[in-house]
């Protein structure tokens, strides 16, 4: 029996209609494509009126298939499936073909774009005829959640879920949770003490009955899918028995090996070979840095072991792999600072009194290496003038094109701290002052009042080459003041480089493990930039905080809470729908060669020993099609993407190329003429 197909072409306002002649295409499809019973165009097909139109047609015209030409399936496939479902049609008998992102948005020529849209609609019409009704499956959601990253975003997510009564595994790479926020002195624009607002959250997470804290640990492997992920965590060896240690700190005190602390102190202070990064660290269990410990270097010392009152030091402790099962994953892995040495003309690493912003944070911090005294590298001289250089590695084609978002405010905060603690003059060298959140502009106005000086221009270099006696012994900041249109030189004692926020070095790698992708720069890609900012394209995997893009503390906290709310919603619902778009193996024809077993990226194919055949575990299958293509016997079928459907789609796309051949059979005489 022939199908009755309804074709619906969307204008999407002018998004599609601006480049594609949608009316013409709808009419053409109705007149030229076989089995098309209804063909319409409409201003906004996704609106309730548009959906109603489809539902009414299905009922009235007894449609058996529906094709919608509109935006990406990512946006509205669910919408149109639901509409079909409401009208009593199996939702998998609808095909949404993308004539917006794949056509109107990327083409300039209206007639060519229209032809492409025509081919796409034709392809969908041919394909939809072969689509089969499918029934979705439901799996239980494991109420436990994995949070990766113990910075403020991850902490917020953890506490929201834990307080709601759900179990959370919080994995942190470093020995303590707290993230970058633990390194800061004050936070803008309120100037409240960073530690004072952060540490209560840290200790709460450390003591919460619903939180399993895994610090000094990293994600090794993820398998399974939304609702039931299986995760392997590598607990790196601390060389300290976690349970036996009381956190008394004798080991740290007595350790004879001092090393530069490049992590927490940003290279501004020292730590021991056995250490807790900072006094409020959570957990209060130290780790031995095996690269600098004397025992690991030359089998001597063991002072910590001898003095530990609870015998908690274990030099032979090894990495441990911990298996956990969770229903959802929240990634909150944060950012890393730009390497300011990449801009050699600013002199970082060459000129002693050029600082990175993280170094200056530690310098300002009352718990930092100078107890919060702002002094130069010699450890005693108080600077008389300080230049703060904005956009170091941000908004720069040669490094990162994006604005790091927080540096203007951090620079203002630095300005305030300097003016408060010293008599120094402070200059800010900015391109544009970006203070566009609540109370931020007011903070800028406050600093203008406090006497911080602002120079609009990008610094061309920081040099110690003096030209005038007043420049002797100073760092000279050379910059075009673009408000007065002149090159200016500013001799100062200290320069602070506001380095860009960059994605973590291994962001891509972690993304691959969890099945989510990154932008060009390496920030995780959210499901929708406006309407779904913490979900990702992989169900059950969420992102929060700066791993998704530069943002300040309030925004990171908001995202942490948002991700937790999304996860809580999934847990409350209890079940999650799994697309029935999966592979299946014709076990009678399977030779048991096992090629597919190893190919499957989701470990979704098992081998049945008794029958010596392979079988797809449908709950794990993602429908990627790898096994379908790999099977040498061709006995694996991908539901919704079988050969018949794909070939029909290709034929449909090539409708114009196939046209003369169809004509030639009916009008045989004209063939020689056209061939010559």
């Amino acid at each position, binding site marked *: 029996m022939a199908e009755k197909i309804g074709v619906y072409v969307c204008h999407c306002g002018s998004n599609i209609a601006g480049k594609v002649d949608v009316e013409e295409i709808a009419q053409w499809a109705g007149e030229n494509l076989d089995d098309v019973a209804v063909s319409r165009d409409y201003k906004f097909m996704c609106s309730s009126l548009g959906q109603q139109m489809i539902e009414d047609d299905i009922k009235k015209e007894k449609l058996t298939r529906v094709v919608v030409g509109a935006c990406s399936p990512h946006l509205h496939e669910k919408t149109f499936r639901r509409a079909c479902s409401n009208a009593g049609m199996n939702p998998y008998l609808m095909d949404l073909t993308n004539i917006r992102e794949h056509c109107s948005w990327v083409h300039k020529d209206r007639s060519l774009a229209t032809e492409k849209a025509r081919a796409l609609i034709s392809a969908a019409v041919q394909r939809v005829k072969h689509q089969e009704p499918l029934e979705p499956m439901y799996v239980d959601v494991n109420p436990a959640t994995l949070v990766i990253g113990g910075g403020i975003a991850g902490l917020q997510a953890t506490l929201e879920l834990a307080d709601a009564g759900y179990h959370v595994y919080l994995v942190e790479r470093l020995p303590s949770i707290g993230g970058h926020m633990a390194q800061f002195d004050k936070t803008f624009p309120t100037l409240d003490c960073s530690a004072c607002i952060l540490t209560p959250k840290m200790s709460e997470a450390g003591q919460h009955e619903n939180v399993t804290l895994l610090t000094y640990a990293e994600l090794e492997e993820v398998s399974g899918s939304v609702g039931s992920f299986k995760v392997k965590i590598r607990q790196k060896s601390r060389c300290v028995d976690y349970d036996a240690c009381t956190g008394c700190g004798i080991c740290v005190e007595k350790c004879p090996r001092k090393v530069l602390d490049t992590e927490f102190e940003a290279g501004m202070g020292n730590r021991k070979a056995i250490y807790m990064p900072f006094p409020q660290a959570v957990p209060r269990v130290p780790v031995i840095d095996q690269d600098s410990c004397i025992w690991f270097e030359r089998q001597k010392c063991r002072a910590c072991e001898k003095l530990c009152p609870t015998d908690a030091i274990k030099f032979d402790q090894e990495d441990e792999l911990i298996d956990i099962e969770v229903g959802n994953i929240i990634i909150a892995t944060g950012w890393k600072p730009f390497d300011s040495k990449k*801009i*050699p*003309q600013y*002199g970082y690493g*060459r000129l002693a009194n050029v600082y990175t912003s993280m170094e200056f944070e530690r310098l300002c911090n009352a718990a930092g290496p100078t107890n919060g005294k702002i002094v130069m590298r010699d450890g005693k001289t108080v600077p008389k003038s300080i230049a703060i250089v904005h956009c170091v590695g941000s908004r720069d084609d040669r490094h990162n094109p994006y604005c790091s978002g927080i540096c203007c405010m951090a620079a203002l905060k630095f300005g305030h701290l300097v003016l408060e603690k010293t008599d120094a003059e402070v200059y800010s060298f900015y391109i544009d002052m970006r203070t566009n959140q609540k109370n931020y502009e007011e903070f800028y106005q406050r600093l203008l009042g406090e006497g911080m000086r602002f120079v609009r221009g990008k610094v061309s*270099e920081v*040099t110690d*080459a*003096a*030209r005038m006696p007043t420049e002797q012994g100073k760092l000279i900041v050379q910059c075009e003041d673009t408000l007065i249109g002149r090159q200016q030189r500013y001799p100062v004692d200290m320069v602070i480089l506001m380095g860009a926020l960059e994605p973590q070095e291994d962001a891509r790698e972690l993304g691959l493990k969890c099945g989510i992708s990154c932008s060009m720069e390496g920030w995780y890609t959210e499901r929708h930039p406006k309407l779904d900012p913490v979900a990702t394209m992989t169900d059950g995997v969420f992102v929060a905080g700066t791993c998704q893009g530069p943002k300040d503390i309030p925004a990171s906290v908001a995202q942490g809470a948002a991700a937790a709310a999304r996860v809580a919603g999934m847990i409350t619902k209890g079940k999650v729908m799994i697309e029935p778009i999966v592979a299946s193996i014709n076990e009678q024809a399977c030779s048991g060669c096992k090629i597919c077993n190893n190919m499957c990226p989701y470990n979704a194919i098992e081998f049945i020993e008794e029958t010596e055949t392979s079988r797809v575990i449908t709950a794990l299958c993602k429908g990627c099609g790898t096994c379908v293509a790999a099977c040498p016997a061709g006995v694996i079928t991908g539901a919704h993407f079988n050969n018949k459907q794909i070939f029909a789609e290709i034929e449909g796309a090539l409708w114009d190329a196939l046209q003369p051949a169809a004509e030639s059979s009916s009008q045989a005489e004209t063939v020689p003429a056209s061939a010559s």
Partner: protein
Amino acid sequence: MKYAYYPGCSLESGSAAYDKSVKAVIEQLGFGLDELDDWNCCGATEYFSQNELVATSVIARNLALVDDRHDQLVAPCAACFLNLKKTDKLLAEQPKIRGKVDQALAAGGLRYRPGRVQVRHLLDVLYTDIGEQAIKAKVVQPLTGLRVAPYYGCQIVRPLNGFDNPEYPMKLDEMFTWLGAEVVDYPVKAHCCGGHMTQISEENAFELIRRLLQSAADYRADLILCMCPMCQLNMDMYQGRVNNFFNTKFKLPIVYFTQMLGVALGIDMKKLGFGKELVAAEPVIRGKLEGQTAAATK
């Protein structure tokens, strides 16, 4: 890779020491540079601002003269290097100019396809192609104890140079650490020497030159290494005038980097063109190096 060599006009006259030392060094390193037959002037810095089409055609002629056996064109002069490199890029990116230049070349029976020849500065070839190991292996007179200030000037380090950081170049610094010299990391090494400013406004030119000499002297350099005839001329020939003008007492020899490379490779200083500079370099070099040898033998 085979290298064609474009010496440029300066090396035939004012900076004969550069030419002499390049040839000596190349020979010592056992390396082939085939001088381009019938090359012409690159137009220096002025021609481009006078008449872009003629300037481009004049330079394109040199590119077209590189025969099929060579794929690299090496220039020791900063201005020649920049002009050749810029022209190659211009021809590749601007079909309008290229069409006219093609006609001009055709009139002389020549043609050039942009990108066929890779334009390289001599420093790039020595640093990248010959490299650290080969050069170190041939050092017989390490420059130990000699404080050298590498000066890049402003033309070699334009963003299209393709081999060093345009803002803060390091390749010449690195090369001289291979030779055992104490390299002075002074901040003005890529600042402008003034070029032909001496002909337009002496005072401004002198100030630009003074800054370079001052910074090198502040960092206690024994001498400045150049790789551009213009820079060498400005800092060497005008050093006395600068001293008079500012009442300073600079006495810094300005030599080509190939001259000092030659010394390290054990080539007789006479073969390296020393003595043509106005602020004599030989006594300084001998003083430092012999002092070193004497100390070593003690």
